[in-house]
């Protein structure tokens, strides 16, 4: 009886020691599953303006439409300062139309260009310097 009790105690001690030693087998690292690829958020039909809401492509060098004629600002309705500003703009516009000096320069430049083209066709150039002896 005594021997049986000792054996039982030893057995229990062995089991407790084995549990305490903690021999744990390494586990492979857990890999998170790849998230599912979401589909591109596109609409099934292309975006089109609603009928009646289409916008017209404006031509870049045309002035904007001011709407009905009564929306236009009349010169007579302007203040003195505003009229002065408009007059300055008109004067600048007039000067852009050209001056006699500008027309002369254009004519001279044009004649020079025609002359150079003719010289090119004749296979000669720099006529103003060829054979000029001081």
């Amino acid at each position, binding site marked *: 009886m005594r021997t049986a009790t000792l054996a039982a105690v030893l057995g229990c001690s062995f089991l407790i020691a084995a549990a305490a030693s903690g021999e744990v087998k390494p586990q492979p690292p857990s890999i998170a599953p790849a998230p599912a690829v979401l589909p591109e958020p596109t609409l099934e039909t292309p975006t089109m303006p609603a009928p009646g809401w289409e916008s017209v492509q404006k031509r870049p060098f045309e002035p904007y439409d001011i709407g009905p004629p009564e929306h236009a600002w009349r010169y007579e309705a302007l203040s003195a300062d505003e009229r002065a500003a408009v007059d300055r703009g008109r004067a600048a516009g007039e000067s852009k139309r050209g001056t006699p000096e500008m027309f002369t320069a254009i004519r001279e430049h044009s*004649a*020079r260009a*025609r*002359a*150079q*083209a*003719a*010289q090119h*066709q*004749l*296979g*000669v*150039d*720099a*006529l*103003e*310097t*060829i*054979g*000029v*002896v*001081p």
Partner: protein
Amino acid sequence: MKRLVLLAACVLGCGSGSDERETATLDTLTFEIPAQWKRTDYQQRGLNTAQWSPAENDRSESLVVMRSQLAEPVAKSGKRALLQDLLARAQGSLVGLKARPVSSLTSTHGFDGARVEVEFRSPKTKQNYRRIHVVLVEPGGTSLVHVLYTAKKPDPNASVLESVLRSIRQGEG
């Protein structure tokens, strides 16, 4: 009297109208140039150009001969009116231009061409010059030949230019 004769001989001998000529060549061209005139060769945008001036150059004279193969389409066209029109228009780049009407000519050795006489102001020397510009078409229409006589006080007979026009031909001698 003897002095006067010597002086007259010296004046005649030193002038551009001297009869003493020598043969000059440029590429395939041959022509006569006064023996006293000195030659300078240079390249003008790929064109062979020869310029002559007298050693004593009181008139600021020069004679330039250029042979241009770049103008083959014009040379081959054989249209005198086109050549005259181009020659007239080509003078348009000259400052203070006064031009006489363009005329046509045929040289002694059968070169057809056009001729214009102009007066202009040189931007380089700021002085007025007179020039006779002649364009000749080589027989066969392979190239154009430019002959320019330019001077501040031109020889009224342009004897150097006339000598070249009388003598210019293809081939040696």
